[in-house]
């Protein structure tokens, strides 16, 4: 890592696992997470020259979240493209008749996927990527007060979703 700025290969090798996890928590499935990661890494490669040494994982989380929100906006503009292929983008994943959810994390992931994207992004940046509110606000281009509200409402919705699946009293 020359001068504190990592190479593209170092980013992919050392932080790919983190990046993929954030992408998966945002997208809700592996196929879309893979697309998000690939697009994010392309943006990383383009933006490395401008990268200011600091929280690299924070920077990566912001990039992949912006890729996610760009994709959400694109699919909203062209809903016919999105819905037949993968309704998970806008609807909570509905389990198939033969699908049995195994483990608590699947239920939490399903509840997370049921959140509106704006709330989901804020919650994932806070609780998965562990970013402070100010960085989340910068990433999403909204005031800190809005971040605070989205995180709180997102968590409340998540809790209600978990209650409805019987995960909590």
């Amino acid at each position: 890592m020359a001068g504190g700025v990592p190479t593209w290969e170092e980013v992919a090798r050392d932080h790919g696992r983190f990046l993929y996890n954030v992408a998966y928590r945002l997208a809700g499935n592996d196929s879309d997470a893979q697309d998000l990661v690939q697009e994010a890494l392309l943006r990383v490669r383009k933006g490395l020259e401008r990268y200011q040494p600091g929280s690299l994982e924070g920077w990566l989380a912001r990039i992949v979240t912006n890729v996610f929100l760009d994709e959400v906006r694109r699919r909203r503009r062209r809903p016919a493209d999105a819905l037949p292929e993968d309704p998970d983008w806008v609807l909570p994943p509905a389990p198939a008749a033969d699908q049995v959810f195994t483990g608590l994390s699947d239920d939490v992931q399903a509840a997370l996927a049921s959140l509106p994207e704006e709330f989901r992004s804020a919650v994932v940046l806070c609780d998965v990527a562990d970013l402070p509110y100010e960085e989340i606000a910068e990433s999403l281009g909204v005031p800190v007060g809005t971040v605070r509200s989205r995180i709180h409402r997102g968590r409340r919705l998540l809790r209600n979703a978990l209650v409805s699946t019987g995960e909590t009293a």
Partner: protein
Amino acid sequence: MNGRPAPDDRLSAYLDGELNAAERADVDGYLAESPEWRAERDAIAYARDMLRRLPVHEAPPGVWEGVLSPELTRARARRRSRLPRALAAATAAVAVAAVVIASLVIPSPDRVTPRVPALSDSHAVRTSVSDEPVSQLATLSMITPFRR
């Protein structure tokens, strides 16, 4: 409660350590007084903990080879740049077509290439037989550079 705004979304910020000292003291006051707000805090804390305890989701086998493969990366980059390149190609095609059409439609000025030696000879012959002194000088002026 006591005329103060209810903590509401400050509860999450409270749990995340994102409040300043005054805000924190305010929320502490609410929590001490209100069992409802303590229940709300616990509900939010539960959701927060569930998210933070989610395990890292590992990429399925082979994903990294696909994500990082130069072919796929290039293909994605090509897809991203397809529209601008198509626009540039269309613009260039229109420009070329415009030049070609203009060259066909707009008449070019006729080029005149006078056959000076032949005209000069012809004139010299005519003046030599006409006995007209001024015209004879004209022949000389064409052959001999004028000098002061």
